[in-house]
C-alpha cells in the first residue's frame, strides 16, 4: 500500500496541471463560440486562403 504515498502526490500534480490548462483555455476564449469552428472546418482552405478573386 505504500505505493499510494507516491501515487497520491502524482495525482495532485496531474489534477492541478489539468486545472491550470483548463483555466488557460478559458482565458484564451476557446469556449466562447462552440459552434462556428465546427463549421469552419468544413470549408476548404480556411486558413491558407491563396489570392482572392478580384472583382
Amino acid at each position, binding site marked *: 500500500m505504500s505505493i499510494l504515498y507516491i501515487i497520491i502526490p502524482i*495525482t495532485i500534480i496531474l489534477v492541478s496541471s489539468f486545472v491550470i490548462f483548463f*483555466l488557460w483555455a478559458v482565458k484564451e476564449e476557446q469556449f466562447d463560440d462552440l459552434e462556428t469552428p465546427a*463549421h469552419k472546418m468544413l*470549408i476548404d482552405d480556411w486558413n491558407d486562403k*491563396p*489570392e*482572392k*478573386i*478580384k472583382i
Partner: protein
Amino acid sequence: MNDSAVITKAENRQVDDSAADLKDTHSNCTHCSTTITDGDKAVFSNNGDAFCCWGCETVYKILKKGNFSLINRPSASLPEYDFLDTDSFLQDYSVSVDNKKSMRFFIEGIQCTACLWIIDQIPDWIPQVENANLNMSQNTLLVTLKEPGYFGKVASVLSALGYKAYPVKSLDEAKHFQKKENHQQLKRLGVAAACSGNIMLFSFSIYSGLKGQMAGMFGYLNLAFFLPILFYCAQPFYTNLWRSLRAGRPSIDLPIVAAIIIGFVLSLINLIQGNEDFYFDSLSILILLLLASRYFLSRTQQTFINSSYMQTFIESQVCQRWNSESNEYDKIPARHLNVDDKVLIKEGERVPADGTVLNEWVNINPSILTGESLPQKLFKDSDIYAGTQVVAGYAEILVKQTTGNSRIGQILKKVEEQIYNKTPLISLTDKAAQYFSIFILVAGALFFSFYINVDPTEAVKRTLALIILACPCALAFATPLTQSLSLRKAAKKGYLIKNAESLEKLNYVKNIFFDKTGTLTQGQFEFLTWKSPRAEESGNFSPDQETLDAIYSIEVYSQHPIARTLVKYLEGKGVKKLAVHSLTEIPGSGISGTIDDDNYKIVSELPDENIRDDSDIISSLISIYKNGNLIASACLGDRLHSDAKQTIAKLDSIGIKMHILSGDKSIPVSSVAKKLRIANEQFSSNLMPEKKSEIINNFPDSLMVGDGANDSLAMSSDNVSIAVQGSVESCLVAADIYVTREGVSPVRDLILLSQNTFGVIKRNLVFSFVYNFAGGLAALLGYISPLTAAILMPVSSLVVLSSSAIGTKFLRRFNKINFSLNN
C-alpha cells in the same frame, strides 16, 4: 460548395493580346489550379484567364457572375443604411481595436455552413473590410474595417444576401463584464469538476471499508479538495443568497447554502474527532451539478440582445436644413436641429423631427406611429411627426420639436427606461423553496427542542442530518436544466428567448394582444384581386387587355401610392402604354383620362364591409369607370398570414383571450377581427403607441405580439412580449422573445412549450418534496447513516435529472407533431 471554395484559389491575370503568349504565361488552371500540361488543349476566356477544361471555364464564369450580381445588386448600396457611418452613430456602436473600427451586428437568418461561407466572402467583395467574423452560436457578426465609412455598405450587402442585420450597441464595459462573468462561471465549473471527481475517488475507498491511518489521511485529502469548492466555486450561491435576503425574499439558495455550511462544519468536526462520517463527496457533487445547470441556462439565454439597446436611428440621420444666409440647404445631423428650422425631406427619407408641412402636399408612411398599412396624404400646415417616411413627393417642414423631444423620440426613451425597470418575476421554484426552507427550519427547531431532553448529542446530529437531507437541491438544478433544454429547443426552431423568466411568464398568459399590420397580416400593401361590377360574376374575373392597358397608361402618371401599387402589379402582366390625353386629377385621390375617345375614370373608394374573402384584408377599392359605367374594381390591401386563423382558433380553444390593438382605421381592423372571429369588444383601432401601452397595462398576465416601433412601448411593459419576424430594431430590443420564423403560429408553439416545461418542473417539484420529506423524516427517526445519505442524495438527483430529460424529450416529439400539423 466545393467548387465555390476552389474559386478562391483562382488567379486573375492581365489580358494578353496573342494566344501564343497566353499559352506561355499560363501554366495553371484559373479555376482548379491544376497544372496545364498540354498548352493546346487549354481554354482561354475573353479576358485572358486560362482553364484546363471547358468545365472549369463554365463553373468559373457562373461563380464569378454570381459574385458580380451580388455586389452590383441595386440594393447593395441602400441609402437606408447610411446612418451606420455617421459620427454620432459610430460613437455608440463601434469599437476600436488597434486603431481599426469594428461594429457588431446581430444577423437574422443564419442557418448553416453555407451562410458562414458566404458571409466570410464579404472582405473579398468590399476590399475596405478587414475581416468579418461570424459567431454562429450567438448569431452575431463582428466587422472590422481597414478604413472608416463602410459599415453601411456591409449592412446593405448583407441585406442583398438576404440577411437582416441589426447593429448592436457596443457597451464596452457591459460586454466585457458579461464575458468575464461567463469565463468566471466556466472556471468555477471546471475547478468544481476536477475537485469533486477526486473527492469521489478518495471517498470510494472509505466507503469500501478503508480504516485506520490511511482513512484519516484520505479524509484530510477530501478536505483539501473540498476547500477550493467551498471558497471559490460555491461563491455565487453566497452572493445570490445575500442579494435575495437583502431583497427580503429567501430564494432557493437559502437551503443550498445552509446544507453546504452545515454539512461542511459537521464533516470537519467528524474528521477532527476521527470519525468517518463525511459529507464532502455529496456536497461537492451537489455544487458541481448546480453550477453546471446554472451555467447551461445562462449560456442558452439570449442575453446579448439586451445589451444592444437602441439609439434612435432618426437622430443619427443626416438631414438638409435651410440656411438663410447662404440661401441653400446644409447637410447636418438630425440631432443638431433646432426649433423653427426649415428642413427638406426628399422621397424615401424619414422625417427627422416633429413639425408642420410647409409645401402643398406630401404622401407619408406613418407606420412608425400607427403601424398603418396605407400611406397618408398631408396638406400644407398639417402636423408631421418624426420617424414617418416620405413616400411620394417631398416635404418641407418647420421644426416644432427637436428629434429627442419628438413624439417617437419620447416613446423610444420611455421604452429604454421601462426595459431596465421591469419588475422581476418571482419564479415558481423560488416561491416553493421559500416555503419549504421555512418549513424545514421550523420542523428542525421543533424536533431539536423536543429531543434535546432525550439525547442531546443525537438531537444535534439528527437535526443537522435533516437539514442536509431535506435540501431540495435536486430541484435547484433540475429546474434550470429543464429550462435550458427548453430554451435550446426553442432556439433550434428560431425562437430566441432572452431569459428563462419570460418562458415562465408565458405559462400564465391569459390575454394575448396582437398588433395587426405586420403581425397578423404580412404588412405589405399589395394588389389582391379584381372584382367584377356584377356580383354573380365573381371568382376569376379579370378585365380584358384593353382595359388593363388603359388603366396602366393612366395610372402611370399618378404619384399616389395606390396607383403605384397597381402600376407595379400591371407591369408584371405585360401591358402596353397607350397615348393618353386630357389627364385630370380628381380631388379625393382619383384620376381620369381619355384614350381613343373613351373616357376612363379611376377612383379609390372605401371597401364595403360585405366582401367575402377568407384570407385577405381589403383596405382599399379602386373602381374603374369607362364612359361613366363601372367596368371593374381592383382590391388592394394587406394579406393575412396563412397561419393566423388556425393559430387564433387553437389559442382560443385553450382558453386564452385574443385582442387586437391597431393603429389602423376601424374598417380594416374590424374586417381582420371578423375573419379571425375575434369579438367586437376585443379589438381597438386608431390607437397611438401610448394608448396601446395603457390598455395592456390594465390586463395582468398578458402577452403582446407585435413588430413595429409603435408596439415597442407596450412590449417594454411588465408583461411578456414577442417580436415577430421582420420587427424593427426598437421592437427587437423591447421584446422578451424574438421569433425568426414567419407567421404567428410561433406564438402558439411558445405557449405550448412553456406549459410543457412547467409541467415537467412541477412534476420535479412534487417528487423532490415527497422524497425530501420522507428522507427528512427518516433522518429524524435516526435511520439515516452518512453512507445512506451519500447514496440517497445522488439518487434523488438522478431521478429528477432523468425526469427533466425525458420530459423535454417528450416535448420534442410533441412539438414535432404539432409542427407537422401546422404545415
